């Protein structure tokens, strides 16, 4: 489904304006994110800092600028979020939680820094693995986010994601986790946040990805779920998350990654979706928004760019649909 073929491929300057990705602007936008300390929003979003760093770093890798953030500073910051119990908080002083632990591990993987972790924090990888494993509910197989007990398929996926990157999947009961995912399945082939909950593309991403990591995609009705996912595309090319909802760039990722894992990416119109994602760019200051004309943020920036990578937009690095990380990185960590 390459958008441009033949001679001139990769030369984005010959692309028609509506098909242009403003790579340099996006790189500068991401670099600028940590310089906005004179904005209240910067402080109000501290609880997302480590996620934000993962989003930004991943986007930069996909854009072909892996060194645009200083590696030492990134590593230093990630380690400053690590607690003694092996969990990561969103920023120094924030409590440990699965959501940030996964981002922490993903960043370390992307920086190829697991060995450095173990050097600086003896037994670091093992500690992180234990923290995650301790959050599995032995009865149902699902995972809590932290000691306070909120449960959700997001945390289950996060656990399998991080553990597999560290080669520590054996610390948890994967079969039991798979059983739990099965209990969240609906008649339409999709999955919700917990048993009984409505199918939702975000949750489908977590469940299909978790099943991919567990090697149990055979449990998914590929045609039925593929059909449901393909119906997320709206006339304007964008994708929504559930029936009769509005389009949003982040669903480019949640929906497409699942379609990619199910080998059904060609069931939607890639060209129209590409155009939609590109319309969500801020052509002056960089970054992508949920919809054209809206305010950008790093969350929509990475999921928009990762979506474009799945669509084989020229010049972008390949993304792994299961992990939302550069394929090169997951190949190194997983050995496959």
């Amino acid at each position, binding site marked *: 489904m390459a958008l441009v073929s033949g001679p001139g491929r990769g030369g984005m300057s010959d692309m028609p304006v509506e098909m242009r990705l403003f790579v340099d602007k996006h790189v500068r936008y991401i670099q600028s994110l940590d310089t906005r300390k004179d*904005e209240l929003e910067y402080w109000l979003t501290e609880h*997302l800092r480590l996620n934000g760093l993962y989003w930004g770093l991943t986007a930069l890798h996909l854009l072909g600028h892996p060194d645009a953030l200083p590696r030492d500073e990134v590593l230093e910051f990630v380690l400053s979020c690590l607690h003694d119990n092996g969990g990561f908080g969103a920023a120094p002083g924030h409590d440990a939680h699965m959501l940030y632990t996964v981002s922490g591990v993903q960043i370390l993987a992307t920086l190829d820094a697991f060995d450095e972790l173990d050097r600086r924090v003896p037994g670091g990888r093992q500690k992180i693995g234990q923290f995650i494993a301790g959050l599995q509910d032995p009865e149902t197989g699902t995972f809590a986010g*932290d000691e306070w007990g909120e449960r959700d398929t997001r945390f289950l996926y996060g656990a399998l994601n991080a553990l597999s990157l560290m080669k520590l999947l054996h610390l948890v009961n994967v079969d039991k986790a798979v059983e739990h995912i099965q209990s969240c399945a609906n008649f*339409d082939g999709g999955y919700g946040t917990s048993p009984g909950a409505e*199918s939702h593309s975000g949750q489908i991403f977590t469940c299909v990805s978790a099943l991919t990591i567990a090697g149990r995609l055979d449990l998914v009705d590929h045609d039925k779920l593929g059909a449901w996912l393909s*119906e997320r595309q709206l006339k304007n*090319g964008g994708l929504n998350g559930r*029936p*009769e909802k509005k389009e949003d760039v982040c669903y480019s990722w949640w929906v497409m990654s699942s379609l990619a894992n199910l080998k059904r990416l060609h069931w939607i119109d890639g060209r129209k979706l590409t155009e939609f994602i590109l319309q969500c760019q801020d052509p002056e200051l960089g970054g992508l928004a949920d919809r054209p004309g809206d305010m950008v*943020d790093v969350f929509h920036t990475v999921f928009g760019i990762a979506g474009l990578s799945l669509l084989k937009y020229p010049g972008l690095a390949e993304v792994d649909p299961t992990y939302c990380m550069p394929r090169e990185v997951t190949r190194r960590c997983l050995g496959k």
Partner: protein
Amino acid sequence: MASHGVSRAAATTVRSEEARQKELQQIDTYKDLVNQVNAKIVERQYTIEVLSLITKLLNENPEYYTIWNHRRRVLITLLALDPVDRGDRASPEELIENDLQLTFSLLRKFPKCYWIWNHRDWILQKGESTLEADTTRRLWSGELQLVNKMLHADSRNFHAWSYRRFVVAQLDRIQSGSIADAEAPKSMIELEFEYTTKMIKINLSNFSAWHNRSRLIPRLLDERKADHNARRQLFDNELELICTAINTDPFDQSIWYYHQYLMSTLAPDCPEQSKIVPNLTTEDRTKYYAHEMEYIQEILEDEADCKWIYESLLHVAQCFLVIDAGTDLFTTSDMRNWLENLQRLDPLRKGRWEEVGASLGK
């Protein structure tokens, strides 16, 4: 950091120096409050005064999950105080009511914030282990009012729907735990089923309500101890309801998904616990499929450009072929015709239709 629906034009106007100074001041005040709270927690000052500071901070930033954890640390201490040590300070009931109010007012402003929903769940569970059974029951019943309000504001909020199912499960649990009562109130499942009917009547397009209905039906039938005929009656009623809905707006996806759900329960390979009418014969199934195809084709006469009709015809036809490959109700050429219409009306999913075409063979 993840903003939805905020216009860029409104957000990128250049700040005046005055506005910048004002924002810097706001930052100082905010950081001051954060530092104060964190310092007191490090010192383990789990007092009512610190709880008020935490309230103030959460009102400014309900996404700050660590502060919710701090709140719980303080509450655990305060709830466990011996009445003698407590003196005239807040009682457990007041503390719990207070947090229910706080989370309610925050949810009205931030209906999709996971942490607020999560705290509300925690405080109620805490209440259950601290308060009298009657008070607990009153609190849980009050939760349905809250969910009603939340779903009135946004009838698709999946947090609210999940919370609704959770509250119903708690009420059910409390109910079954209490001594059997001759005048037991109407069962929760019946009431919930009625609620989905009400929500669907307000807006046919509310798939969240249709979904919940699909999850309630098997439980409703079990609870009613419905026999074969009663089950069939319910299935027929549902079909009639959805067929009227299809006739009202055949362009709405939600409705077709519910129709697809009903059809899926007819399939021989449908899991036993999801079947509405077990023990259907092939003849029963044939009748249902034939009736549906006939009805949908009637709608086609007025809506030849509605892709959902063709999609549904193809789907029902495929179900039909599973039970009767030799049916003469439709031919492969009918199926090809429906598919061609899909290709004409729905070019976005061209790749999918090509594969469906290949599966129909030559």
